[in-house]
């Protein structure tokens, strides 16, 4: 379902007359099967969220953000990308590295559900409107989107909060609204970037349980970035999810 082939990412950090190359990934490969629940763990700065953003097509795999620097050897101006990268990401048998514009947007809308640490709900919209939003973006009618959103909110035990705006909801409630929103288009892949990071410990367990239930009931492939490894184990020290992928921080830093 998710395949990452030879993914490379290097940051060219320009500092005065020099720039420093900071390697994030070097030939990163990973594969997640249909229906798997995989957690990506690792220290801060190892690129967990970046990996998720690249898979979710919010971040580009290719070179970007060019700056002009003067090559001291040749004394000529050169244009270099501050973010250097290449590789291939395949989602649901589709090479998404080449997708652009509306095709890319449509692919995200239909196939990927995103859940963020800080829920990222639109504050001016009610819980119902927030949940219905991806379906409205897909072009479905307001009536149909609202009906589905209402159903999902009820599944998330938030039926009575549908007309409330995010500001009056608790952290856990907001995150449940965000989960409902990510599910409304029946995505095949759910990408969760530290979904329990900002929650009260009691709520963390609740959210994780919901993910497990979604994974088992709806066979949704889940790739979750988390710091909280303990919550992934049950009382018998057994992993609740299918797999853990551990990323380490790249040591390589080259001064140029």
């Amino acid at each position, binding site marked *: 379902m998710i395949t990452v082939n030879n993914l490379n990412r290097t940051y060219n950090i320009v500092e005065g007359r020099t720039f420093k190359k900071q390697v994030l990934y070097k030939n990163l490969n990973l594969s997640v099967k249909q229906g798997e629940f995989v957690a990506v763990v690792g220290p801060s700065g190892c690129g967990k969220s970046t990996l998720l953003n690249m898979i979710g097509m*919010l971040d580009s795999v290719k070179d970007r953000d060019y700056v002009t620097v003067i090559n001291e050897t040749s004394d000529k101006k050169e244009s270099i990308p501050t973010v250097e990268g290449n590789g291939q990401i395949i989602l649901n048998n589709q090479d998404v590295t080449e997708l652009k514009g509306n095709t890319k947007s449509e692919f995200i809308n239909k196939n990927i559900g995103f859940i963020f640490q800080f829920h990222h709900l*639109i504050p001016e919209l009610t819980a119902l409107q927030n949940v219905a939003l991806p379906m409205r973006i897909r072009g479905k009618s307001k009536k149909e989107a609202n009906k589905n959103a209402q159903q999902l909110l009820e599944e998330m035990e938030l039926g009575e909060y549908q007309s409330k705006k995010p500001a009056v909801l608790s952290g856990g409630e907001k995150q449940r609204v965000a989960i409902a929103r990510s599910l409304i288009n029946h995505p095949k892949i759910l990408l969760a970037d530290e979904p329990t990071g900002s929650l009260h410990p009691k709520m963390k367990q609740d959210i994780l349980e919901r993910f497990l239930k979604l994974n088992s009931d709806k066979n949704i492939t889940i790739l979750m970035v988390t710091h909280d490894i303990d919550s992934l184990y049950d009382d018998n020290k057994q992993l609740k999810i299918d797999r853990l992928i551990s990323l380490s921080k790249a040591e390589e830093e080259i001064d140029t």
Partner: protein
Amino acid sequence: MLELMLSRYLIKPLFSILLGLGAIIGVICLLVVLSLFQNYFLASEKVFMSIHPHIQIHKEMTADEGKKIITQLKNAFSEITDAEPALYLPTRIIISKADIVEAACVNKQNQSFCLDMKNYPQDDTELDIVVKEGFNLSEKKDEKVLIKGITVTDNETVMAIKRIINGSSNLERLNQTQDSNDFVLPYGFYMEQSFFNEISGAFLISFPALGTDKLNHFRLNGGLKLGTKRGKLPLIVMSIEILQTLINKPNQLNTIEVKLAKPYDSAKIAQAIQNKLGSEFQITSWIEKEKAAFAFLNIVKFMIFLIIFSICIVAAISVYSTLSLAVIENRKKISILKALGIKDSSIYLIFISNALSIGMVGVVVGGILGYLSSHYFIIYFGENLRALGIENPEIQLTQGDILLTASATLLLFLITAIVPARNAIKMDAVDNLRQ
């Protein structure tokens, strides 16, 4: 429509209201300025068409030669609706206002010795008293003028002179020298109103440049309102036959006046006539005659365009900065929408629909208020406009003007919304979601 709903949340209502107000004010200014300019243009055009035929053909010729040329032209050019002979004469005249008073002559043999009846001793009956009308001369002027001796047929002339007459528009009076009882009538004439500030009355005119001191009795039929238009010489219009008689050149003419169906085609047709008649004829169109005035009008038009363009630039900057601010303020929300898979075209639509809605409000409300303001402006500043030569000012807004204003406003809002929308599409969603 989702994009319209989202635009309401992404762009602060206060900004939209301020932009809407800007659009309304812009459209009002545009329509008022356009209406005023149109008034001024039409007033000038009216005067130009009234004092010039659409085309004038100059050459000294006899009446028979003139007739031949007229027939030839009418046959050759279907655009010509009328062509008549005329005699244009720039000459020095001595003109006096001549108020008619009753006078008595005390001696039949010497009638020139007349006294005012009121001062004459009533009881002296032995004198032979003859009562006559006489002239009380005042405001004598000795000036060079342009006399146009024109043909009047069925109360119409080639020049649209009727449109600027202040007084009697009975043009046939120019041809009359006797009344229905065969009594001699003074010659009828029209005169540029600013020359004597009169629209009627008796005048005595002599033509010393033509070698005669004879005083001729004229009756002013009306004044010609030229507004701010000033020719090189004051204009006097009379019948061609009378002018020919006065200067003792019967059957002599020097001009053929031509009227066209489409006055603005005059330059093209004048050229064609020139080609046909040859270089011995001097042919000019009314547009060429008023080249300087049209150049001035074009400068005014250009200045108006500059003012309108400045308004547009200010409006464009306002729309651009407001929408850019909205993009910056809402970068997180836009990034969320991108993470949910919103299409680039929808992001464009969010900003463009907002800008177009504001533009539409500006066009509709501004259009109505602009129309009413033009009306109010014309009533309130009517006197000032008349002083500028704009007689009977009225709202001069055509459907085309309103359509042009509406299209320009909407296009402006559309164009200025594109760049902020593009910035919204290009923004880095990851960076914004991290904040």
